[in-house]
């Protein structure tokens, strides 16, 4: 590396949260003009490390240097003053306020409308972003909101930009555009830290790569000197097998499945001309028709707000439709993307969480003995690692929580415990939404394996993922939503990507 002081240097950072060592003696540097990718599984400490740099987490040990000089960063305001900007995974914008107002937040003194607008125009000129100062943030697409986040950091003169999983919420063309912008921003003499778990993204744009595992640096060096395979092994500590990390480098379309057999299999879930309106009466899903047959995984692709939220919930029977018909066998299982909010009772036992399925239809006494047995068998079948069926949901890792939720939703009619105590059987329909969001490579592979097993066992699966690679990896066929309209598209990355943006 060069002799000039790095833009940002983190030296020997250690941090514990109670009994958990989140970071152990981590050193990290990013130089001006460079993009440095920070890789690792979820929970490896990537975000925690950058929260240290941004003053959101106080390290137990270690120091921070900016341009060679030690700085005390005790709060985000110190980091901003030192020229560090961070774009968080979950945006920190005020939805009801305009772009200009969001950029003015955190400033001091009086507000001048003219000056606020000028700031937005200056940033727009400098970045090439199309920013409308008077647009309310809530009316913007996710990609546009992200550009406002970046603009906010740059309006405060950030020369060191931390991007936390920036492409997770973007459609492939938007993601590629953002990566190109990131490269240009670095080439202009700025430093970028790119937190990601997408290996090909890191290798494509970064100059340097650092891999964290369990809070330690396990691999660091020039991006040109490494490979996806080497990084995968560094991230998970062993050969990956058939994991997503491997799959997303060279994703394969499910081949060799007998499409004739599939097209004659029974329809387990169907939408016929389904329209769903939001509370303001705007149609979010327009006349969608779709059939899911036993033994297939139908993938849904679409950018945020294209109507997938409505499509999935209408098919799962979770929201009413404004027009059209939903047809399904038995009860439809549903794995929502936000499992903490929509799928789990975090402070209750695993048995309670299993009992939640179809609790609305249950009558009389709770068959606790059967439910406990059922929970144990699901834990066994789905490899849910927990001390017992009485363990509290919250104490499980995200991967194990999700495995239990998937197990519950895949299992047969919950009201007949005695008949189905052995877990999964019989053709079923299940709707899954971002089933591996927030999961590490291993848990992701496990969830994928369960979905494939369910498909092979005769279930019809409808899968939406904001990660297009995941859709292409798992789906037998793909439908794309654009602005509420659904159509089937050949499962090719370029075609799907274009259909997502409505540019075919």
């Amino acid at each position: 590396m060069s002799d000039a002081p790095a833009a940002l240097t983190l030296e020997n950072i250690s941090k514990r949260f109670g009994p958990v060592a989140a970071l152990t003696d981590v050193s990290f540097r990013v130089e001006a003009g460079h993009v440095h990718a920070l890789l690792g599984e979820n929970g490896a400490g990537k975000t925690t490390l950058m929260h240290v740099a941004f003053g959101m987490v106080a390290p137990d040990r270690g120091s921070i240097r900016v341009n060679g000089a030690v700085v005390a960063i005790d709060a985000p305001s110190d980091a901003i003053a030192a020229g560090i900007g961070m774009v968080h995974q979950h945006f920190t914008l005020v939805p009801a306020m305009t772009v200009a107002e969001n950029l003015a937040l955190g400033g001091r003194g009086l507000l001048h409308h003219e000056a606020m607008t000028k700031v937005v125009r200056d940033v727009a000129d400098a970045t090439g972003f199309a920013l409308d100062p008077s647009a309310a943030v809530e009316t913007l697409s996710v990609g546009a909101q992200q550009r406002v986040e970046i603009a906010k950091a740059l309006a405060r003169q950030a020369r060191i930009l931390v991007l936390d999983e920036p492409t997770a919420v973007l459609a492939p063309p938007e993601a590629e555009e953002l990566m190109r912008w990131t490269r240009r921003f670095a080439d202009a003499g700025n430093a970028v830290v790119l937190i990601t778990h997408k290996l090909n993204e890191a290798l494509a744009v970064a100059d340097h790569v650092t891999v964290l595992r369990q809070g330690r640096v396990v691999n660091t060096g020039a991006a040109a000197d490494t490979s996806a395979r080497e990084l995968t092994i560094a991230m998970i500590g062993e050969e990956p097998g058939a994991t997503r990390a491997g799959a997303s480098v060279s994703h394969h379309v499910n081949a060799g499945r007998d499409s004739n057999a599939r097209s004659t299999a029974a329809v387990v879930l169907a939408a016929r001309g389904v329209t769903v309106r939001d509370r303001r009466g705007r149609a979010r899903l327009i006349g969608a028709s779709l059939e899911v047959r036993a033994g297939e995984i139908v993938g849904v692709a679409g950018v945020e707000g294209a109507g997938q939220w409505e499509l999935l919930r209408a098919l799962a029977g979770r929201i009413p439709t404004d027009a059209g018909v939903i047809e399904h066998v038995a009860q439809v299982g549903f794995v929502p993307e936000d499992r903490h909010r929509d799928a789990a009772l975090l402070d209750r036992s695993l048995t309670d969480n299993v009992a939640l399925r179809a609790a609305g239809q249950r009558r009389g006494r709770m068959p606790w003995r059967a439910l406990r047995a059922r929970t144990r068998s699901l834990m066994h079948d789905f490899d849910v690692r927990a001390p017992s069926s009485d363990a509290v949901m919250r104490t499980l890792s995200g991967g194990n929580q999700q495995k239990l939720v998937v197990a519950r939703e895949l299992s047969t009619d919950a009201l007949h415990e005695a008949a189905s105590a052995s877990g999964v059987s019989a053709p079923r329909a299940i709707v899954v939404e971002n089933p591996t969001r927030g999961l590490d490579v291993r848990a992701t592979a496990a969830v994928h394996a369960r979905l494939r097993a369910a498909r092979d066992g005769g279930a019809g699966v409808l899968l939406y993922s904001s990660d297009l690679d995941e859709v292409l990896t798992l789906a037998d066929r793909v439908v794309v939503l654009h602005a509420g309209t659904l159509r089937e598209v050949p499962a090719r990355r370029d075609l799907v990507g274009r259909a997502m943006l409505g540019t075919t």
Partner: protein
Amino acid sequence: MRVSSGAVSSALVALGGVLAIIGVIALLLFAGGYDVARALDALWTGSVGSWYSLTSATLVRAVPLMLTGCAIAVAFRAGVWNIGAEGQLLAGGAGATAIALTMPTAGIPALVLALAAGAAAGAAWAGIAAVLRERFGVLEVISTIMLNFVALYAVSFLVRGPLQEPTHAYPQSASIADAVHLARIPGAGRLHAGIIVAIVIVLAAGWVMRHTASGFRLMAVGENPAAAASAGMIDVRRVTSLAFMTSGALAGLAGAIEVLGVTFALYEDLSPGYGYTAIAVALLAGLDPWRVVLTSLLFAALEAGAGAMQRDAGVPSTLVAVIEALLILGVVAAQAIRVRRVSVMTDGDAPQEGLA
């Protein structure tokens, strides 16, 4: 082995808790310059130290605390923050009085009807807040507190108007005929059959919460309404409304029992704040109806003893209010520490919580 050691350890914890409470009381008494020995002696004899005080003071007070405590537990479990047990108790007392006075000679059927009327009145009073919550999104914390005052003034109006005793001299209703009284329990002073009603109902409520689908739905909705609706396909509004009304019915029943077993007439000051103490009773019991039986006894004993301390040792009974407040703070702090521990562990492990 495990069960018995668990039982022993929780018994020890309970014993330690009681000793700690007595210790804190002694400390406060000492700091206030009172005769500690004499005051503690009064606290003891006035609560559980004599048969008379145990039955006529402590157990008689435990009945309304048990039912209102259970009312709060049911509501809070469902995520319904019903602070209105006091008002629902008053509504129940008024409803029971009205029925009991119209049927002075009917005996047991009238008694049962009066108890039912009390429960119905309490449920209806809670129903106002339930409708405001489900229809208009009015926070029940606010509406139930307000309705407590409305209930108080409504009773005040009733005992000066439609329900006032025939001579129109006192702000109270006519006396309820003996035939419609809850029977005294022989040899137990002023203690009446209401305690049996209360214990049976609270035990039944605990059983329903633990073992039935309705109880499970109640808990699920209270834990996470979004997941209850999405994963459980539970009609959340129906469950919360039902919990709210059930809570009101339990508090109303407490008021009816108070009127039919203790006061035999409707008074403005029917309740010395049972509906508020009930919140402490329920929280200390961890919102478990079965444990409410025990915590209601503890609070009843403290309040009975407080009265005796005031009479016999000149100690203001507000001192016991301080103790009750400390108890609640202790419980809340213990829960907060437990939650914090769990979430710290989870944060290190599950990055989507916002750390890694």
